[in-house]
């Protein structure tokens, strides 16, 4: 059985991962669509920016987040003063770090899904009376659903394991910002830590596997529907 601090870390990790995906998913859908369907000046720059967290050391990402969202940061001071949003040493900081690090993994399958959609289906929708937003909501989004689900679950699984950027902006405060990764790290620092941290390692593996499995099942169900099963 898990101890109370371990349960706390599991709960916090799930909250952080869900919040990270919930916040970044709409943005990832917008960016994925833009990169898949539109040509614009500076597209290469946007692509680089989106993929940067994938190749940057997470600690560097965390440092940059601290510069921007810290209490004296470019945005951090403003957000704390006007919206009461604090990121430093707070679970919201952990969610922000997870969202940024997982963002490229969300965008990639979403972008591929959008790119695979036949643009003429949208044209067909327009001739049937749908405006651009209606056509997006009724045709584009449902057809991109496998990619959106896949991206969300991949992002969720990645958020679960975020460490470097999280410790930089949110710290490692028991009960407040200590996620599974940070607790495993802390346990390993103590005598017998290899044995005690094993429980959390298994929990991590189980949650991430379940997320990926759920993604696979949902994607297959979606594919089966599109390829002609009687609905």
């Amino acid at each position, binding site marked *: 059985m898990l101890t109370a601090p371990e349960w706390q870390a599991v709960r916090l990790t799930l909250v952080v991962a869900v919040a990270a995906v919930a916040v970044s998913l709409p943005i990832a859908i917008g960016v994925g669509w833009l990169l898949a369907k539109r040509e614009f000046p500076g597209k290469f720059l946007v692509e680089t920016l989106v993929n940067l967290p994938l190749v940057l050391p997470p600690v560097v990402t965390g440092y940059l987040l601290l510069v921007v969202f810290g209490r004296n940061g470019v945005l951090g001071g403003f957000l704390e003063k006007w919206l009461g949003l604090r990121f430093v040493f707070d679970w919201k900081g952990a969610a922000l770090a997870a969202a940024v690090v997982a963002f490229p993994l969300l965008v990639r399958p979403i972008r591929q899904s959008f790119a695979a959609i036949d643009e003429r*289906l949208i044209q067909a929708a327009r001739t*049937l009376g*749908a*405006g651009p937003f*209606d056509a997006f909501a009724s045709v584009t989004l*449902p057809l991109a659903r496998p990619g959106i689900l896949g991206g969300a679950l991949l992002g969720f699984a990645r958020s679960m394991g975020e460490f470097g950027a999280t410790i930089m902006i949110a710290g490692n405060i028991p009960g407040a910002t200590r996620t599974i990764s940070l607790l495993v790290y802390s346990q390993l620092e103590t005598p017998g830590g290899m044995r005690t941290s094993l429980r959390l390692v298994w929990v991590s593996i189980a949650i991430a596997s379940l997320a990926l499995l759920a993604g696979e099942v949902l994607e297959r169900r979606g594919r089966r529907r599109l390829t*002609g099963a*009687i609905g």
Partner: protein
Amino acid sequence: MMTVLTFDCRFAYPTGFALDFAFNVDAGVTGLVGPSGCGKTTVLNLISGLLRPDSGRIALGDQDLFDAKKRTDRRPEERQIGYVFQDFLLFPHLSVEDNLRYGQQRQKDCRIEFQRVVAALELGDVLRRMPASLSGGQKQRVALGRALMRSPQLLLLDEPLNALDRELRASVIEDLAKIVDELEIPAIVVSHDQASIAALEAHVVAMSQTGSPGS
């Protein structure tokens, strides 16, 4: 006879080739024929609003769809035109029934009854099926039904018989003639198959390679 559609447009392709074409459509079926690549589908795309002419005018009855001089350009969703695409373009994530109702749900006043279209096109048995499970002929009928449920003032059909074998062609021609006659919807049928156009007893407009009327 009352003119349903007035078309007089110029459209330049990115390749440099320019389509310069004018014709009128009266009630009944009009067959738009011509050699491959002469711009027949482009004409349909210009009428439906999927392409924008460089100059000229397109009017449906007394309503301007496009007029370069008046700077009028109605968006595709504002034009009361039903378009049956060459490769059907059924929405793969929607059932046959949802495909049929797509256009109907997006207009205030649908003058064509759902059951009437379903019965006329014999689609009652496939309403719950997904498009991928349908045969070519069934897909064709769903595409036709979907366009009709838009209550169009004009129906556009791009090579509606292309993907069908000879037996199905005869049945689709029959369906098409029956529906157009029954619902009194004028139609433009693009085809390179003169025999099919003749079977529809259509008024023929021929396009030449340069996109000007041949006869």
